[in-house]
């Protein structure tokens, strides 16, 4: 069992598909909003008011309590120059933090390398979900991908407990040190041993966890945040947590689908913060929520198509709540090809979190200086 000193942790939640910023933080007093969103607008009657001009989507009640507690920062008008409206390219730009060329490593992969340069802990960074998002990828940086914490590990398909334990034990022996192996097999077996140890550590997290918080069942984002809480509370040295919430590509039936997504997410995030609080760990984590792009100002009759200019959230006890940046103007003259014009480079948020929260020189990770927000309590 590895124990590590408690250090600041970062939880990143990716909203896949392009979250509609305008129906998330709603400019409900703006006439252009209502004119452009004839089919899918939200009204003063149903938004959750923030400041008399902007309101949260009605499904975001649980986020409002974080707002009221001063723990929720809303960054408006987030984007990057020459917006790309392809899911894949735009997500890649967010992942690599490089907008003008295709880069080969992710900003969090580089962050993990900075946190653990020798790769001593194979679970410094964990993705909760299958496969490795590019954000976490960097050459030589070990990152675990956990589909389901309960069954995570080697050969989870073996149902019989005794047989699986034996199989995993045999695995550990097969991948143990052996001088007679050539360089290739040596490298493979060393990695295997790391995987075995990481899985062994993670296995202990659910067992040592208890909480009064009941995350919503059958909601993947809720289950993933519960898994994150379990690992965070287990103090095994994980500093970067990553997960996704999918379905934001709301070209049709947006009102209903978007509300369902934000209900799930807001509830799960609020539960997560409450869970940390319950264990006296609310000060240890910052959550960042982003999406690859926003959506068009004008609706298409039942939903919205790909646009630019998004909204991001940073939240947790260490965060100074409030609105950051400016809400982009909806005036026709200010629109970019029918989209909101960004006024905050997303890398400014990365820089803020890296510098003010994780204590890492952001220039090392982002290759450039970006203007930061004064967002973290020190």
């Amino acid at each position, binding site marked *: 069992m590895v124990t590590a000193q408690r250090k600041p942790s970062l939880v990143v939640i990716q909203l896949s598909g392009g979250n509609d910023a305008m129906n998330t933080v709603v400019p409900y007093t703006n006439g252009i909003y209502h004119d452009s969103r004839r089919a899918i607008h939200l009204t003063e009657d149903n938004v959750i008011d923030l400041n008399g001009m902007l309101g949260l989507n009605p499904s975001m009640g649980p986020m409002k309590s974080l707002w009221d507690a001063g723990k929720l920062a809303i960054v408006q008008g987030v984007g990057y120059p020459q917006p790309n409206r392809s899911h894949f390219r735009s997500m890649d730009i967010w992942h690599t933090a490089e907008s003008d060329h295709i880069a080969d490593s992710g900003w969090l992969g580089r962050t993990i390398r900075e946190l653990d340069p020798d790769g001593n802990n194979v679970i410094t960074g964990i993705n909760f979900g299958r496969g490795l998002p590019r954000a976490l990828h960097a050459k030589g940086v070990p990152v675990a991908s956990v589909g389901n914490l309960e069954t995570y590990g080697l050969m989870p398909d073996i149902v019989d407990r005794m047989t699986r334990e034996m199989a995993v034990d045999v695995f550990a022996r097969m991948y143990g040190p052996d001088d007679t192996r050539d360089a290739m097999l040596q490298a493979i077996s060393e990695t295997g041993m790391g995987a075995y140890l990481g899985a062994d550590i993670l296995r202990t997290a659910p067992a040592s966890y208890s909480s009064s918080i009941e995350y919503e069942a059958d909601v993947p984002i809720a289950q993933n945040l519960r898994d994150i809480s379990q690992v965070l509370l287990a103090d095994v040295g994980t500093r970067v947590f990553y997960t996704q919430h999918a379905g934001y590509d709301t070209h049709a039936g947006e009102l209903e*689908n978007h509300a369902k997504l934000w209900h799930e997410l807001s509830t799960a995030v609020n539960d997560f913060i409450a869970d940390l609080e319950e264990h006296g760990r609310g000060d240890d984590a910052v959550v960042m929520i982003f999406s690859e792009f926003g959506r068009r100002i004008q609706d298409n009759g039942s939903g919205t198509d790909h646009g630019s200019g998004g909204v991001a959230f940073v939240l947790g006890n260490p965060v100074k709540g409030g609105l950051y940046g400016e809400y982009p103007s909806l005036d026709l003259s200010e629109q970019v090809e029918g989209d909101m014009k960004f006024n905050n480079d997303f890398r400014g948020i990365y820089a803020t979190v890296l510098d003010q929260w994780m204590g890492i020189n952001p220039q090392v990770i982002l290759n450039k200086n970006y203007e930061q927000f004064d967002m973290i309590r020190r």
Partner: protein
Amino acid sequence: MTTTAKPRTTRLTYNRTIGVAGMQGRGFYYPWSVAVAADGTYFILGRGSDSDPRGVRMVAMNLEEEYFGTFGSFGEGSGQAIWNASTAIDSQQRLFTSDDHLNRILVRTLEGELLDTWGESGTDEGKLNGPTGLAFNSKDELLVSDHLNGRIQKFTIDGKHLSTIGEFGSGDGQLNLPWGLHVDGDDNLYVADWGNDRIVKFSSDGEFLANFGSVGRGEGEFDAPSDVCVDSDGYIYVADWGNQRIQVLDAGGGFVQQNEGQATISKWAQDFLDTNVEESAARDASDLDMDLVFNTDDPHERSAHIEKLFWGPTSIAIDNDGHVLVVDSNRHRLQVFNVVTAG
């Protein structure tokens, strides 16, 4: 671009295109089959896709593109489907769908309320291995293309096995991965014998009557036909799926006409273009009907490049007003044709 063969007779003329790509609400994601209710409503069954199953649903609309709603979803639960395959409506206006993965038939009201689920996996008589095409005869008996078993089975509407037609093979009366079905006014059965590249006609009591066509790209030849229907004059309309066209045959199987598709912008498509003006402008500045030379004789290639052509026509049916509806699957729309009756 003109069609490759000069039609001898014109039986079909293009009317319009309806629908648009869409995973939710208005639109289709790989539409697969269509049935028409007594009140004229079109029920379009979506196959969906492997990585985005939201298209696994039914959409109700009409020729004027009025949208009436959607029901059904992906899954193995009650009323759900994994691989939607075909749909048909009986005389009591019950809506049947087949699922060639779960080996079952779902029965619904036209409003989508689930009435019944039946079907059992297997190879024995009465069991199903990949039910695809569906069609009713005049006695409200349901014919099911039990395609991996290489046969057509006849059931009562509640799933009691009545008889079996055909067997696996390539000879007369044999079938290889059959797909779409049609029953004509005399209760003769037409089968799109996909794997044998032909249409097979059986009598109402299941006797083999005729084969139409053989493999090829020429007139009256087929590449893996997916569906067939017959009009009141006996003309046969074939969705010649692998050849990316429809063909019209006379009652004896003689070639009459072919059409490779001539889709135009539907109302729903126009709504998209109106919202996305830059895309619309770039589109207007393009030549989407260009003459290209391909390195293969596979028409799939042409259809991938030229938008108006059929690309994966999976189903063909006639509505209550005599329009021929072609489900143009890879292009997420239906192309609609008028039938021209002689003199």
